[in-house]
């Protein structure tokens, strides 16, 4: 059974600065949804709210996992991770002075994932042969592309049902961006995930997304029910691509 996410009227910010202004979106079971938006529009803030790293001032975040609905707003990060929700954070946030294997192993920290540690490692090393070659290398000394693979692998180690990915393309060469995005599609398919991916790289994001949202100033400015709809959209041309 796949899992889904429904966000309704979400308001959040930092101190007195409001960043999300009543944002609503849904990610259906088994979907890959792209969250498109330029710098500073609140993509990462939304991701932090879902993971309990930022506390919403209003609104709800509901996750349905295996037929049970959970309210995430106000829940602790550990409990949210325990439900089977994982985030590949902006900037990857690896443990630089731990080895590749230690980083992956920490990914399986949540109690339900610990038993599957060996299986998870095998899966990651098969999906990312590069990580297998470098299993003893310190994460901080890996290339940007390798680090992104490791960050993805580490998130998968928790055996998530819902995977959130925040700007996987940042800092990668065009060819690597394509490969990373393609990898996310592959993983999503083989692990039966529900994916919400924040991206600025419009073309690449839409190559794997079923649907997408455009976020402007903390609100959904446009909902595209297909990649084609987003491609043709006036707003995207104006706000997003600067055309």
């Amino acid at each position: 059974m796949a899992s889904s996410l429904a966000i309704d009227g979400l308001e959040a910010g930092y101190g007195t600065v409001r960043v999300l202004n009543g944002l609503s979106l849904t990610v259906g079971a088994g979907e890959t949804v792209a969250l498109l938006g330029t710098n500073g529009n609140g993509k990462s803030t939304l991701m932090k709210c879902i993971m309990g790293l930022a506390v919403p001032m209003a609104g709800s975040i509901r996750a349905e996992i295996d037929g049970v609905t959970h309210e995430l707003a106000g829940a602790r990060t550990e409990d949210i991770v325990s439900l089977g929700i994982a985030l590949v954070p902006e900037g990857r946030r690896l443990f630089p002075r731990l080895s590749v294997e230690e980083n992956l192993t920490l990914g399986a920290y949540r109690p339900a994932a610990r038993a599957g540690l060996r299986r998870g490692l095998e899966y990651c090393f098969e999906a990312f042969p590069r990580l297998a070659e470098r299993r003893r290398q310190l994460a901080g000394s890996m290339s940007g592309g390798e680090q992104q693979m490791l960050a993805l692998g580490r998130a998968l180690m928790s055996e998530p049902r819902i995977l959130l990915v925040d700007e996987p393309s940042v800092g990668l060469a065009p060819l690597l961006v394509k490969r990373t995005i393609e990898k996310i599609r592959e993983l999503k398919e083989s692990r039966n995930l529900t994916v919400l991916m924040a991206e600025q790289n419009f073309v690449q994001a839409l190559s794997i997304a079923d649907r997408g949202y455009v976020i402007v100033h903390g609100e959904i400015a446009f909902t595209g029910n297909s990649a084609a709809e987003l491609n043709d959209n006036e707003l995207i041309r104006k706000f997003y691509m600067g055309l």
Partner: protein
Amino acid sequence: MPISASFRRAIPAASCSPAVVDKRSRGKRAWKGKPNGMDPLLELLLNAVVAGLLLGAFYAAVAVGIAIAFGMLDIPNLAHPAFVVMGAFAVWLLNDAFGLDPILAGILCLPPFFLLGVLLYQAYYACFESRGDNALQGLAFFFGILFVTEVVLILVIGADYRTVAAPYIGPNWRIGGIDLPLRMLVPALVSLLMIGGLHLLLTRSFIGRAILAVSQDPLALQLMGASPVRTKRLAFGLSIATAAIAGALLIIIQPVEPSIGREFIGRAFAVVVLGGMGSFVGMLMAAMVLGVTESLVATLFSPSWAPAIAFGFLLPTLAIRAGGLMGRKL
């Protein structure tokens, strides 16, 4: 009184003011020792090296708690040596009142010391860490704890030197011309056992890996489903618990009085920094280097020079290898 000067006395003086024993007298005894074909100077040096290794193993037992707090958790626990002395007195009380073996007494002290560490971290977290300004204030906090602990010990136990009794205090093994005083050998083995156990815990368990990761990126650790505060609380509890064992080893090795911990502050921090901040293998190596240097200097020159020369040796090493001997460098 530097410990390196006192540890060679075959029987520690009972609670009297310990006079510094000149190691050269010990050296002369070796010269007159039963002839066994070994060059006397070589024998003297070998003895000094072995004594230094045993001493280094003990230094490592004191330093391991600092390696956890300072090297892995970024908690500047200057007061650690005071907790070691507190452990020594707790062991003395149990040994004196019930005749408990000092090492067993140290093990019995583990739970209360763990709890003490947990409470201390809770206070440190509430006052400093959660507010974000923890560098200098934290240092002052632990400096205060150091003095308070000392004063409390003096008020409760008095300023006298205390000793414990155990079957391994006194006997001396002599293997091929090398002296192995059991009151140095037993603590060294216990220290290695404790450090080995902690190393396994840190590298093989989930909570251990979380402890290694927590200061590198607490937010990322949260995303793994671990609580950074709970992880640090547990790790700091462990760090203080090691002081109970180190205290037991200290009072086996030499008589203890409340302010004796100050002698170890510099040594223990140097060992941790030289070892590469949080690397147990590096810390052990650094402790051995310090122990052997001190022992050689004490044997060949004078015990009172030992700490200065040992540090004189440590500083250039640090200058050459800024990351320490075995730190995880990028």
